């Protein structure tokens, strides 16, 4: 069973409460499920469906559109090497070949010890720092084959575990809206009047 834990259900309800319609929370909850188990399980998708009012097929329909969601276990560290234009112009292909040789696996697969998954990624918005890669969505810039080797050494030895959380955790900080400060989300059909500050006068 990999439904959401009690603590995560509490978090899920808090997240759902921020949206005028519960289904808007689908992607954040899928992230929560992936954070819990390292990938998104079928049970978690059914559970999310129950929480947001969708069928598990609808939740899977959404989840399967997005590349970050994995439906089977991946390595503790996911290395995404960017292969789009700016990085390709500055050696991304060579870097990918080097990574494949070094780890003995092809792009898109995981090392036998389950530690590292290698993926080819598309543009990561670090084009001036090419070639770049991400480890569990943490950046490394202007990466040389030697630097990639020492990165892999460090990951294998567990030296970076304080900086880079295991796969599944993206942001390690959550938004928290204090109850006494929240305006609160209202279903759109319940709102019929203009916001109070649109009365032609200054708000302050």
């Amino acid at each position: 069973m990999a439904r959401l834990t009690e603590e995560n259900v509490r978090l899920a309800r808090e997240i759902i409460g921020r949206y005028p319609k519960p289904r808007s929370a689908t992607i954040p909850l899928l992230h929560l499920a992936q954070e819990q188990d390292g990938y998104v399980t079928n049970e978690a998708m059914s559970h999310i469906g129950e929480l947001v009012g969708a069928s598990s097929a609808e939740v899977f329909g959404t989840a399967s559109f997005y590349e970050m969601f994995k439906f089977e276990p991946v390595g503790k560290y996911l290395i995404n090497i960017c292969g789009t234009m700016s990085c390709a112009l500055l050696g991304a292909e060579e870097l990918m070949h080097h990574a494949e040789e070094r780890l003995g696996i092809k792009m898109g697969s995981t090392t036998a010890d389950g530690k590292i998954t290698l993926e080819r990624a598309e543009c990561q918005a670090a084009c001036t720092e090419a070639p770049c890669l991400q480890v569990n969505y943490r950046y490394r810039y202007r990466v040389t084959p030697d630097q990639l080797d020492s990165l892999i050494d460090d990951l294998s030895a567990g030296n970076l575990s304080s900086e880079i959380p295991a796969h599944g955790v993206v942001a390690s900080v959550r938004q928290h809206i204090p109850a006494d400060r929240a305006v609160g989300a209202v279903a759109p059909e319940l709102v019929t009047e203009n916001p109070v500050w649109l009365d032609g006068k200054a708000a302050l």
Partner: protein
Amino acid sequence: MTGGTWKHAPGFYVGDRPQVVTSRFQYEDSYTLERYLATDGYKGLRSALARPANEIHDEVRSATVLGRGGAGFPAGNKWGLMPQEVWPRYLVVNGDESEPGTYKDRLLMERDPHQLIEGCLIASYAAGLSQCFLYIRGEMALAQERIATALNEAYAAGYVGKNILGSKFSLDIVLHWGAGAYVVGEETALIESLEGNRGMPRLKPPYFPAANGLYGQPTIVNNVETLANLPWLLNNGAAAYTAIGTATSPGTRMVAVSGHVNRPGVFEIINGITTFRDLLYGEEFCQGIRNGNDLKAFVPGGGSAPWFTPDQLDLPFEASQVGPAGSMLGSGAIMVMDSTTDIPRAALTLTRFYAHESCGKCTPCREGGTWLERILSRVVDGKGTDADLDQIFEVGESICPGAFPHASNEKLGIAAVPFPYRMNTICFVGPSAYAPVHSALTLFRSEFDARIVKRTMIKVTAVSE
């Protein structure tokens, strides 16, 4: 400090130029509320709240703040497209930066999250938006952390939430994040994704979600950089804003120049005036092509844009000049190729990107993009034929009927076909798969020809009569 940079803002260089959105990048702790407040933070909001909302909308409209996401539509006018008396209205912030070559919104979110939050507050106050959703690209962990921390601080300090600064203005800003899909940067796809669906663009019309957006309500979708301009605008006024740049392209804009230049970087440049030559060769910008090589081609506005060659270097960052020249400014992303570049392979990296990122909704894009990628791969691998090159144009025609925009070229004796194109798809992903290969083939045909396998037709005759 000319050409200065800081370790904490990788890729960014300051110069002797006005800084509208990057003024805090110099501080290591620029993302904290403390630093923000010490550097005029939330002053723009305070002055906005002291005036009626419609006045603030007029101020933004008169400043002509062009959208910085790609289309360049003025923000004030976009807000004005919402139908009267339909409530609630929403603000969705497009922080899904993923156009190849584009690197600016991530810096703005990581380095100055409060500036963006203040921009959201000003926009929501001015346009009467009831709730704000800040949609950040899924892969940007640090940006999400910085914005989450900033929002938590801002809520606690009374800048966001109920009765902001003790006024009657209230707004919740919800941090939302994606999960990896380029097409979600298209505004109707962004809304679909925010509703919990597959991120596929909606059928048009309506062309603007201002009429029918999130949950079918009037919705403003603005880019991160666009909103980040608002605090400065409120602090300094529309007149000061339009004093920078030109009448049609006022203010500054952030551009990223990457590829084969000596100093790739992100710069805040003066809009409308700065030329591509300044950017690529200027001492305060990229300082020339690497290894003293010649410039072969450059992409002027993100992976979707038709390519330019040295012939277009003197064009300024001004849409009304770049459009007729056959391309677009898009998201401020310039990718530079020097004389050593293998043009067919370079085109393939971009075409592959768009083929990969097609959401699959429109047939010309879903099938056409994949065809283009396959044909081009074959040519790059030296297995293509002349028929393959013709087929590229044929597939392109089915995505974008009619003449496709391209730059002029003196040596080849061809005139420019102006931007934009006609398209058989809902959004720009399909045409974007065609743009790089079309440009490459139009401007560098000989490099493709050199790779083609020449086959002579063998006349088939009967073995015996």
